């Protein structure tokens, strides 16, 4: 059964996206559709387009902070200020472990803040747990 819970990944780095994607597919059964936006503007464009079967509303957004142009913090702010988007859980996935960033993201309404693990194994583990939590344990709002 094809799951319609779309994962939106906002990640500028091809390498990081590849690593994340690999982590998602590691257990071999990623049933969710996955969409990647390469920068902040790209993400907002996707999110501001009316939903349809071809253009699914994301069930969860994985957001990198350091993006070219419009950076992750501003994207987060716009999502959480938009009534149409604010109920989508946003997981901040970034290399930064700066306390200021962490605080700012939670203040802006981030649902989770994860520092990208340095080691690949840890990344795999973190993504696995994230997948388990958000798609197995947590109950997400119904898509429109």
């Amino acid at each position, binding site marked *: 059964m094809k799951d319609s819970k779309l994962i939106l990944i906002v990640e500028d780095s091809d*390498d*990081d996206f590849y690593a994340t994607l690999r982590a998602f597919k590691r257990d071999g059964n990623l049933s969710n559709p996955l969409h990647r936006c390469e920068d902040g503007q790209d993400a907002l464009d996707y999110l501001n387009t009316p939903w349809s079967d071809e253009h699914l509303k994301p069930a969860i957004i994985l957001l990198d902070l350091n993006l070219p142009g419009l950076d992750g913090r501003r994207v987060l702010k716009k999502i959480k200020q938009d009534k149409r988007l604010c109920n989508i859980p946003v997981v901040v996935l970034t*290399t*930064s472990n700066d306390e200021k960033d962490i605080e700012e993201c939670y203040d802006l309404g981030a649902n989770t803040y994860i520092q990208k693990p*340095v080691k690949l194994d840890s990344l795999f583990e973190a993504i696995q747990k994230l997948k388990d939590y958000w798609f197995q344990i947590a109950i997400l709002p119904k898509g429109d």
Partner: protein
Amino acid sequence: MINNIGNSSQRLKLAVAVVLSGVIISVFVSVHIWSLSIEQHNLLIKLTSVAKSELIEHHFVSSMPAIINALERMRNRWIARQGPPFSEWQLDAQDYVNDHAGLRAVEWVNKDYVVKWVVPLKGNESAVDLDLTFEANRKQALDQARDLKTYTLSKPVQLVQGGKGFLAYFPIFVGREFEGFILGVFDVSLLVDSLLPHKFIEDHNIEILSGNEVMYSKKEAELTYDDKTGHTHSFSLYGVQWDIAVWPRKITGVTEESSIHYVALVNGVLISLLAGVALFYLLKSLISESIIRAKDAEHKATLENAIDGIITLDSRGVIRSVNGTAEHIFARQRGDLIGQKLSILLAEPFRTEYAQCVWDKERLNEGCVEIGKVQRVAGVLKNGHVFPLDLGITTFEIHKAQLFCCVVKDVSAAVKLAQEKEKLIQQLSKSNEELDNFAYIASHDLKEPLRAIQNHACFLKEDYESILGSDGVYKLDRLVYLGAKMERLISDLMYYSRLGREEPDMARFNMVSAVKSTKSRLSESLEEHNAEVTVSGDFPAVYGNRTRIEELLYNLIINGYKYNLSDKKIINIRFDENLKACCVEDNGIGIDAQFGDEVFKIFKRLNSPKKFGEGSGAGLTIAQKIVERHGGRIWYESELGNGTRFYFTLKDDNQNNEGQ
């Protein structure tokens, strides 16, 4: 000038001394004159006494021979008449007694020394038939006169008739027949009283002595003899020694006159004092005038040469005076400025503001001027050059007129300096910020490709392990390991850079509990290294960022067991009361003194990683940074093989208290 002022008090002292000594001398002279005058007065009285005593002597000496002659004549007549009848003798004797006042009686004493005839009888009854041998003195004189056949004067005797006197015996020999004596009774009192006029005696005491016998005394008890005013005259008459003492009877005369002396004395003293006081005030005013002049000159010179310009304004805000410095600041002569408004020295907008000021103490503050405060305004020169000027205005009252004192200072140089400084600070903080951002961004951006390299190495290994073989796998592992190592270096660099940028939240906390948290964070590692962390003694409350302080402890504790070859590695944490510093001491390998502060250099490692395990070499650098961010200092004491003691202090406790 200054010396004049400096000496003024000395001069005043000198004046006081001169005046005082003048007064003292003057009073002394007055007293001396007074005593001299009293002495003179006494001398005058004494001279009177001398004159009187001499007069008495004169009378004595002049009247006695007459009496002696008279008695001698009586005797001669007896001899001539060969014993005259009593009536004839009586008449004769009565004449003599009448003529000579001192002669109390004339008597005929028979050859048996018995008084037979007495003239006058009245008053001398007791002498009749008196046997003169009753008394040795008389008998001796009679014997002597009879034997020597010449008249003899007795020594002073108590007369049987009363009173004191002496007797003159004239032996009568008719042929060879002794017929007794003609005896004259001298009464000293009678003699003296007759000699001296009443007035003469009235105001003087008189005492006549013969030997020690008081022969005559006429004195009042209230004043005893005093050699200063009295006189004792001594003379000898017919072999008898006489002393006549004369001295003034009353002091009334003396006191009456001496009150004049006292008045003179008091007058003299008073005049001296008054003159002294007057002189003192005169001198004082002269001296203070010279002091005022000197001070005035000093004040003028001080004002003239003050560092700041000084301009005084009258109650309408018009310039009254300008000092040299103000002339210099505005490049104008005072003659050019006096009488003008202060506002002409200021540039707009201050010129208008100050021109509109109401120069009144109460109302001045309504406008732009604030009394007693220095304000930054702009001055203007005649050529239009505008410059920053500090202007402070104070007000004071002289003779009920409100005046203003303006202190002006050209602050062009200071303003320029401040601007340059501000510019430098801005540049510096900008470059610091850029540096921080650079370190952060650079290290962040470095990390991403690094991680990608590692990841791809992992993917390569996962996907193509069988093709690569063991050698290829080893090299890929090595790639991952080196990437991880570089990542750790970058992380430490990032952390270090962040420590410099952030302003940590400060709070008061307990050091022991911070040590406990750090210990539990390290518990696994401690167990693995067979290390123990102990805490000894008490700690004062610490003020700082607890998270950072725990990181500081974390780094120092790790350092303590990592470079440690003891079986049981012990890290003790205590507060050193003497150094007022926290101490983290270990029983590790110690640090060679030659390294000094190098241990705190970032990425500096003193030992091979193979021997003591991996580390980026940033631990102590981070520790140092944390301490410095807390306003403290970190240092160590160590000896190779004997462990190391790291000490650190945090911000001064007093400041902490104020901060809370």
